[in-house]
């Protein structure tokens, strides 16, 4: 699970957390100095080398910096043999435990900035209440719409229909001259359609079909038990 999570999260960490366009973790001297200071004490020498290296190479990108950090960590834990003699000697003095800590720092850094933080108390109890889908948030006016996991990257909370938008859309629809589409529900006249259709087609119908299959096989099992075919 963690390996998969890391595979999912590291590219997003590089894209959305490191650069200035994201959270800028490696986009300013202040930030990268802060990040390097979280390295285990055993890696202090590496941190110093990287700091002075980045001072000299002002055009280095946040992505490049991350690659360099990873390279150093890989060197420390001994998976690469191309170090110069002096550095290798210095690192030889590190205990396995220290090396492990430095390697863990890499994974933990990615996880610390990206790994899901669940409010697990909500999940733990059968009788915990949770806000229903399709409600409207009173502070934002936005409808609690279902998300499509297939294009979750394109979901923009700021374009979610608000109460004002959808009511206006209803009124506008009434004024339209040509209405060809068949309408079963009024929400089909508004921008909620995209979200509710997704809920219906990709979630509700497959769910109910599976419930039906289970009911049918339970019935058949019961029938075979009493010999009633």
């Amino acid at each position, binding site marked *: *699970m963690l390996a998969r*999570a890391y595979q*999912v*999260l590291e590219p*997003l960490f590089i894209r*959305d957390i490191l650069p200035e366009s*994201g*959270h800028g973790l490696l986009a300013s001297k202040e*930030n990268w100095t802060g990040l390097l200071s979280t390295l285990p004490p055993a890696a202090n020498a590496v941190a110093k080398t990287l700091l002075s290296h980045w001072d000299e190479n002002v055009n280095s990108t946040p992505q490049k910096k991350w690659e360099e950090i990873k390279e150093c960590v890989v060197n420390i834990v001994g998976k690469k043999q191309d170090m110069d003699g002096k550095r290798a000697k210095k690192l030889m003095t590190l205990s396995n435990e220290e090396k492990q*800590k430095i390697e*863990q720092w890499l994974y933990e850094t990615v996880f*610390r900035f990206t*790994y*899901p*933080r*669940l*409010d*697990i108390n*909500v*999940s*733990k109890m*059968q*009788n*915990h*209440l*949770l*806000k*229903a*889908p*399709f*409600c409207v*948030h*009173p*502070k*934002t*006016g*936005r409808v*609690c*719409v279902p*998300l499509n*996991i297939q294009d979750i990257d394109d979901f*923009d909370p*700021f374009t979610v229909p608000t*109460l*004002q*938008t*959808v*009511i206006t859309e*209803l009124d506008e629809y009434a004024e339209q001259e040509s209405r060809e589409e068949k309408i*079963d*529900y*009024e929400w089909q006249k508004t921008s909620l359609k995209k979200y*509710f259709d997704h809920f*219906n087609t990709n*979630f509700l*119908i497959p*769910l*109910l079909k*599976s419930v*039906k299959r289970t009911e049918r096989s339970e019935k058949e099992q019961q029938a075979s038990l009493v010999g009633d075919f």
Partner: protein
Amino acid sequence: MTSVITSSASRDTFVVTTSSESGHLTTDSANSNAEYNPILLGKYYLRLFPYRLFHAWISYDTSYLQRKVSNTIMTQSSTSKNLFSKREFSFTIEPTPGEEIYIRYQSFETEAEFATAVNKRRPTKIDIGAVFTFSPRDHLALQGSQTRKFNTEQRELVFDVDLTDYDDVRKCGCSNANICHKCWKLMTMAVKVVDAGLREDFGFEHIVWIYSGRRGVHAWVCDEAARMLSNEGRSAVATYFQVKCVCMYFLKYPNFSRFSYRTLIHVV
């Protein structure tokens, strides 16, 4: 902002009085409050709330599959197991601005009854609870009964992720209820990781993710195996998604919050 909770006449009803020091509700500049008022909400409940989809889902009513789609609200109770009438709903209503009343243990026989109540009360929030052994609205009458125990029977496995729990790593300048495109990326990451874990590691198939309307997302896992999970089973699944780190040097990090410490205590 201070909230006072007082228990009122019925023990299922709580009154929450919210007073703001500045005299007005705090809103974020990006999340305008002008988009919402009780009249618009009334129209939404009357004409747009998807009662049919909602009822078919929450009662696992397979007759929805055969039923010819129509916009008339069903007055018949659903055939299968009648889960709907044993489901707890709770309404948050705001009779006057600043006064919130929270009503628990609401239950409804039919979709029509639910729709009527929603249109009458115009709740600012509807919460979904568990399916009980009896109709939740009768729960007081069942108190102390030896033969008719009022217990939970099933409930979707739910997850709640909220950007306020990311304040120590949100370097975009947002905090609390504020969000921006930069910090929303963290929600996208959370959805991807949890969804993949639920499907691939637990074999769940019927998962729906919902935007919570402001700064987070909810997941509803609706597979029967998930709905039947005990509290212990739910804890086990939830804990599975918690990553912890042994490395205490994280503690020296200046913005290391209570929350991230809870999340990252032990490396698996």
